[in-house]
């Protein structure tokens, strides 16, 4: 008799749709190619992508666009909002409540340092906050994470790129590992890590519950990012958590 084997779900916690400017370079305008994301994601064996808008000045329209795209591709995409706690101050709760409860978005990317207003709303709605600080010269990554993680222990924070997009600064990866070890509400995602050895370090040193598979696609190639996940050679139970179960738990999906 043929033994039935279930493949673990692969959920990309970090992808992009819509128009704006890239998160890495505010001078570069983009309008992300959804078909490229879906085609290459499917080729990589990714079941679903969590998608968020690229950088915008304010996010009401960008988040609506994300929600529309996710509705059209239900089953393939899960929508995340984005907001600027500084530029949209005073309106964040109202906007997030509508985006989560009426439009079906499941998390929020913080464009700028998260404030109490943003974190209170995230706590109330039970959604994770994805926050990638762009440290000033000489400021360690922890400077941006210790306070929110301490003050809001029940808000789950996702630190993308293992703390450093493209691995431009290796100490930031080490700090990200320390943050994830110290705070039970800090998670790291695997997207856009240029120096793979730090992902191997994360896989060795962190509990598997704290690592989330991400691609940053279509800015990056999801096939390459997925190959990095495979190269970690995780045992099946750990792989299942990193590949998808962890983010599904955080999103309450």
């Amino acid at each position, binding site marked *: 008799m043929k033994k039935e084997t279930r493949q673990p779900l692969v959920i990309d916690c970090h992808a992009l749709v819509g128009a704006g400017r890239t998160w890495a*370079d505010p001078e*570069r305008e983009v309008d992300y190619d959804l078909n490229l994301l879906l085609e290459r994601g499917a080729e990589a064996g990714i079941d679903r992508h969590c998608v968020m808008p690229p950088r915008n000045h304010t996010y009401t329209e960008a988040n609506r666009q994300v929600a529309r795209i996710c509705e059209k591709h239900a089953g393939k995409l899960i929508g995340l909002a984005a907001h600027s706690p500084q530029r949209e101050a005073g309106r964040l709760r109202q906007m997030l409540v509508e985006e989560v409860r009426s439009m079906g978005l499941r998390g929020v990317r913080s464009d700028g340092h998260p404030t109490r207003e943003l974190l209170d709303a995230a706590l109330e709605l039970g959604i994770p906050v994805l926050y990638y600080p762009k440290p000033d010269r000489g400021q360690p990554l922890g400077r941006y994470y210790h306070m929110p993680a301490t003050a809001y222990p029940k808000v789950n924070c996702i630190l993308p790129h293992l703390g450093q997009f*493209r*691995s*431009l600064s*290796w100490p930031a990866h080490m700090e990200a590992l320390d943050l994830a070890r110290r705070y039970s509400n800090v998670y790291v995602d695997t997207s*856009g890590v*240029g*120096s*793979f*050895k730090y992902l191997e370090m994360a896989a060795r040193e962190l509990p598997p519950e704290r690592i989330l598979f991400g691609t940053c696609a279509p*800015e*990056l*190639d999801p*096939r*390459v990012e997925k*190959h*990095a996940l495979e*190269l970690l050679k995780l045992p099946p139970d750990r792989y299942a958590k990193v590949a998808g179960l962890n983010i599904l738990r955080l999103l309450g999906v």
Partner: protein
Amino acid sequence: MKSAEAYSRRELLIGAGLAAAATAGRAEQAHRISVIDCHTHAGTGTTLTDPWTTIADPQEILRRNKEAGIDKACIFPISHDTFEEANREIAQIVKRYPGRFIGFAKHDPVNERGRIRAMLLDECRELGLRGLKLHVKPTPEVLDTVAELGIPVLWHPGRVAMFDDIAKAYPTVDLILAHLGSDLSSDWREHLAGIEMARRYPNVYLDTGATVLTRYLEQALQEVGPEKIIFGSDEPEVDCRLEIFKIRVLKLPKQQEEMILGGNIQRLLGKYKGGAS
């Protein structure tokens, strides 16, 4: 044992087929282009401030090379102020692992000025090194020596624009632009500048190593063609298994993939005319 008459026609045909396949397999093996990583650091550093001033362990590199299907890697020292000793270490590593590494020298044209010709001639002729890795802009002293030896220069410049007058002034020197112009894609504009440089000068090639924004690899392929692109990884800081996947995932025709993964660098290495002791 069966007599010749006892073999059926079918058995004979199968036997002949297997023999032909084995011959073809051997021929294919003989003609297979070696997969060569043009950009790998090796050896020990002294200042211990960053991974690239501490150690690049050749055994670790070989383990990953084997897994990635890389036959050989061009190796050169990690960061130092001067490189005479580090280049000797590279030659020793090449000797220690026969057939697995191709040694390149590294030099600082400013810190080592006046001594580079003598050192480089010795490193190629006596130590068997076959290329030069640079970070600092090459001086005429460096370029004249490189032209005399017929070795390629893998250069990671501060800005891609620095290639312009060098490529123009030394058209017979093969210049490989490291990281497609931008290490870890830290500035995408430099990738575009690199592609333009390879299009403008026949002697400029693009190394693929540590290109995070892989759409620029695809753009380079479209705009300058596979004959100007050379596979590299930047091991051990960047993993060769992922870097080679970035090429393989493009699903190029076999001949094009072979050019990138080994044929092009092999051609450049074949221009060596420096002689040996």
